[in-house]
């Protein structure tokens, strides 16, 4: 089969899976749905592997292939084909997305087993994977926007999966609307690009861009900034990030797949995909790099104080994507995508392990209530440790190499990138602290009631299910934890998928060992070869220094977390009291929600109410409608009064009228 046939199959399988599950939702019993959903994604992954083999067998110069199925929209000024672009970059994304998705589907087979919406879940999940693959394979700007929008929709569906929870529906609409704002950015950005190049096809746009725009041409800067809005909204970067923590309302596998490993990295992919444009629009790239750096710091500080297990990981995701955005904006594409890949492994792993803990806690997510799970949940604990070490950047785990690669790339470029370099290391320290704070609080210390019950061999079940978000009583028909809960220790499919990810998170770094393998850089070369920053020689001294700093900071962070939360348990309270102001700032998430509510949500709502209550009544119903209506009424009343109904009056009018006519004629004569 040809390369592009594989490419189309990659998209087709998840779509088919989603349709089959959707149509068969009433028929499919037991775990059939999980099997169908998982195998659809597995087939998609295998097609991706086929495409990889086919791609690697081509000469390096022709590793960017476009295939079109039909004309999607052709107008006077636009020619949109339904086309995919298969090249090393899109294929890397396909493999990461489909690969991690396969494992998460496998995990979900057990994790969601007792959920009433089992079939629905897999239908949505397959639909998401289809959308995401559509996004990464899109061959032109319009299809990119289509994929972009569809993942937003799928994300909405999955966040609101337990739709009886008010917190979940609120989180869903919030995520969706912010993502639509991002879509608008993409659409406007696409329009600007089309206006400039007259093309929608990505490769054509890239080929024309250098001839159309000079460096920092205002048009392309605006276009790229608009694309950046889309990227920031989807990748939860400041200030478009507030939806991501709330998105944790979705089931844990969703958090692992969409809000950690795949969808939220779409912004990174976008910037990498559009690199020929961002390289012309250097101002936009700088904005992106700074935005990423700000996000990585802001999110890390919030991660230090949040008490919800999943939200800690969510803020960590924001922070890590900040690294990636910073990297690809600064032109360090290989490292950014490398980190994207390793992050997908260890973050998905952390979420899966968190799901296992939540299972043991019967849906409870508050760290304050957890403790002492180390002995009773060895697999989960091990996975947390592996994921945590990778996230903290401890050698030889994968995160160490990828994070270091990013910072090395920034440092090599010098100039003001040094500021980003420093920010990256500050972030790394905080990352290690919050990661191990989470681990120590959940697994060490005094065993909580749930851990004790597990030690007795019984999985804890709450007498009544309450929404962890707002404490309202749950409808178990739609909402966690369903009838039963599941933990990795008791579900092979959960532990297998976690085990695979744990291995990948550990050894994932080998594909890009600096000076040794550099496989990823070579692989991506056909996509990025035109980039001036791609493959600039590395300063090996800087690399050695960076690695040492990274490892030391990571270990230091872990040590600090150990001191604060294990060795001297009261320390954190003292720190909170000492630094009351920053603590308040961090625990209120830098007041972003409040600021957005104040600046955008409330004015809009007030305007809407003003229109509804005042303008409609006074202007529309009053001045515009009532005015003409009353004029019509008054004039009709005036004419009506002549119609007395008196026959003799009419006769008199006729006679007088006739007399007047005669008189007139006589006078004329």
């Amino acid at each position, binding site marked *: 089969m040809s390369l592009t046939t594989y490419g189309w199959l990659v998209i087709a399988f998840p779509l088919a899976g989603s349709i089959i599950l959707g149509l068969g939702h009433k028929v499919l019993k037991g775990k059939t749905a999980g099997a169908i959903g998982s195998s659809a994604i597995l087939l998609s992954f295998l097609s991706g592997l086929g495409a990889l083999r086919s791609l690697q067998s081509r000469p390096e110069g022709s590793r960017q292939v476009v295939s079109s199925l039909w004309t999607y929209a052709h*107008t006077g*000024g636009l020619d949109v084909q339904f086309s995919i672009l298969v090249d090393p970059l899109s294929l890397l994304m396909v493999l990461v997305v489909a690969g991690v998705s396969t494992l998460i589907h496998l995990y979900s087979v057990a994790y969601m087993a007792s959920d009433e919406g089992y079939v629905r879940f897999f239908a949505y999940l397959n639909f998401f994977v289809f959308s995401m693959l559509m996004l990464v394979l899109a061959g032109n700007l319009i299809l990119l926007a289509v994929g972009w929008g569809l993942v937003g929709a799928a994300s909405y569906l999955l966040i609101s999966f337990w*739709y009886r929870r008010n917190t979940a529906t609120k989180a869903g609409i919030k995520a969706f609307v912010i993502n639509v704002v991002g879509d608008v950015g993409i659409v406007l950005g696409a329009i600007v690009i089309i206006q400039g190049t007259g093309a929608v096809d990505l490769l054509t746009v890239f080929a024309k861009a250098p001839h159309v725009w000079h460096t920092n041409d205002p048009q392309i800067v605006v276009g790229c900034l608009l694309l950046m809005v889309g990227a920031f909204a989807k990748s939860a970067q400041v200030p478009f990030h507030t939806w991501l923590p709330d998105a944790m309302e979705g089931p844990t596998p969703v958090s692992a797949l969409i809000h950690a490993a795949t969808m939220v990295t779409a912004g990174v992919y976008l910037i990498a995909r559009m690199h020929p444009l961002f390289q012309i629009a250097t101002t936009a790239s700088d904005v992106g790099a700074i935005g990423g750096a700000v996000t990585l710091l802001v999110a890390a500080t919030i991660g230090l104080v949040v008490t919800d297990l999943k939200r800690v990981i969510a803020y960590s995701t924001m922070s890590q994507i900040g690294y990636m955005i910073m990297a690809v904006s600064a032109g360090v594409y290989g490292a950014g995508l490398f980190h994207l890949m390793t992050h997908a492994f260890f973050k998905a792993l952390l979420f899966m392990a968190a799901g296992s803990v939540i299972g043991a806690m019967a849906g409870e997510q508050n760290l304050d209530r957890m403790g002492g799970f180390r002995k009773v949940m060895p697999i989960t604990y091990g996975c947390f440790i592996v994921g945590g070490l990778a996230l903290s950047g401890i050698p030889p785990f994968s995160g160490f190499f990828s994070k270091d690669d990013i910072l090395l790339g920034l440092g090599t470029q010098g100039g003001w990138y040094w500021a980003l370099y420093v920010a990256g290391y500050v972030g790394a320290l905080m990352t290690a602290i919050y990661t191990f704070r989470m681990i120590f609080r959940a697994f060490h210390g005094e065993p909580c009631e749930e851990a004790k019950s597990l030690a007795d061999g019984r999985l804890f079940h709450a007498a009544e299910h309450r929404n962890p978000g707002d404490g309202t009583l749950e409808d178990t028909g739609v909402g966690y934890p369903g009838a039963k809960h599941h933990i990795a220790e008791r579900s092979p499919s959960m532990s297998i998928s976690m085990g695979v990810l744990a291995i990948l998170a550990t050894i994932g770094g080998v594909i890009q060992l600096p000076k040794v393998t550099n496989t990823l850089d070579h692989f991506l070369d056909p996509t990025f070869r035109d980039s001036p920053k791609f493959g600039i020689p590395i300063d090996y001294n800087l690399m050695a220094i960076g690695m040492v700093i990274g490892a030391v900071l990571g270990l230091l962070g872990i040590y600090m977390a150990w001191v604060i939360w294990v060795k001297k348990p009261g320390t954190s309270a003292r720190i909170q009291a000492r630094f009351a102001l920053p603590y308040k700032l961090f625990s209120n998430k830098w007041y972003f929600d409040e600021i957005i509510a104040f600046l955008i949500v409330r004015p809009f709502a007030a305007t809407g109410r003003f229109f509804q209550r005042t303008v409609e009544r006074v202007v*529309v119903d009053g001045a515009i409608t009532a005015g*003409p209506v009353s004029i019509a009424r008054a004039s009709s009343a005036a004419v009506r009064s002549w119609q007395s109904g008196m026959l003799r009056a009419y006769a008199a009018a006729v006679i007088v009228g006739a007399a007047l006519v005669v008189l007139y004629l006589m006078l004329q004569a």
Partner: protein
Amino acid sequence: MELTLLLFLPLATGLLGAVLGNRLVKPAAVLGGLGTLGVAVGLALNYDTALGGSQFTVDKLWVKPLGIHWALTIDGLNLALVVLTAFVYASVVVACAVREQENPRLFYFHLGLGASAVLGAFLAQDLILFVLFFDLMLVPFYFLVGQWGTGERVAATTKMVIYTLAGSLLMLAAAVATGALAASHHGRHIDFLISNLQRLPLGKGTQQWIFLCFAAAFLVKMPAVPLHGWLKDAYKSMPLPVLALFSGVLSKVAAYGFLKLALPLFPDAAASFQDLLLAIGVISILYGSALAFTTNDARLVVGYSSIAQLGFILIGIFSLTSDGAQGALLQMVNHGVVTVALVMIVGVLASRAKGSEDLGSMGGIAMGAPVLAVVFLIAAFANLAMPASANFIGEFLILKGVFDSVTVVAVIACLGVAMAAVYMLRAYIRAMHGPDTNGVEQRDLSFREALPILPAIALILALAVSPQPLLKRSEGPATAAVIPAAKAANIDPIQTATTAQAKR
């Protein structure tokens, strides 16, 4: 000849049903609806796209002293809208047939008359014929609201009629003036064939007042802010299937009128009022959206969202670019289909919430109704122009056209895109999601309920997969419609790669 048949089929079957009696009225109407759809689809399939232009033309001198022709045709501009009308009419008749009406004979007669009038307005190639059908559309709806409506129906229908008639009278005067001026210019007997009225060297002042008269009629019908005062009451009191027909196609006649008449006949005026109409369009988008996300009435969410969507169509047309006009045309079809689905869904929702259409009395319906939930979700996503829907392509083309001609308008209009997401999802969530606090009936779509909805959903999906068949046929005529006005406004109507590069 085929077109005359198509035009009269709904009316004739309505009349036939009325004559045949209460028992046969429904079958006659349903057959009429499906027959109309069949003829329309047949014509569309037989329309030679490669050839393009006007086909199946009928042109007979109808009223000789006044020079009025019975001139009908199908071209790329109205093809899709004619099929849309037939489709909506068929769906509406089916939706009516699965429930009971008081006095069904008269009801279906009025419905058929309405559909025939709309078809006539789309097909007419004579200005007076257009005006005639445009006004005729109002008559059956006056009765349909007045007799079969609910609530304050008489007040609502009176308000609607006064509004629309005011606009129509202006349009009639303008149409007569156009014909007379053309006759005196060419020095021949008066006639109103639209093709003969183009390229009149009218003075700018004359063009302007004539254009404004037409615009007033169209803006009332769409409706655009601030001429939408009749909408709320009329929507509230219309029977739901009637509302589907009304909202689905009548508003499109007005938008079509801009493309068919106002732009080609009075290009200078269109160019000079471009800013005004763009402003009205943008205000409609923002104002309609703001109303839609504050109302609690499910029906009014659809109504106000129509104001916003027609605002998009208006700015698309008055971008005076080929892409904008094509986007507007595509969006007319999309909006028609989506509206039918949404209006019918509102009916289903109300039946689950003890007959109330208040969003506050719904909640949690999705639980027992997965099919309904999916169907509603598809319609809602389409209405908010979710990427991958044909509405997205329509809106994209509109925004692109507007961006190319008046950038700032496009940027403001984008707010409407985000607001659409808010109001559609808000309505969806409040009806379908959340805890079941109001004791709604959790029942899935029954076969009868699904019958008129599912075809619309299928059409939404089909258009999403490929909107190209519509775009292909409308490219030529839509471009031709905007070119004179674009020239007058000094706008490049077709932004292509070459022109974009030449400009730099």
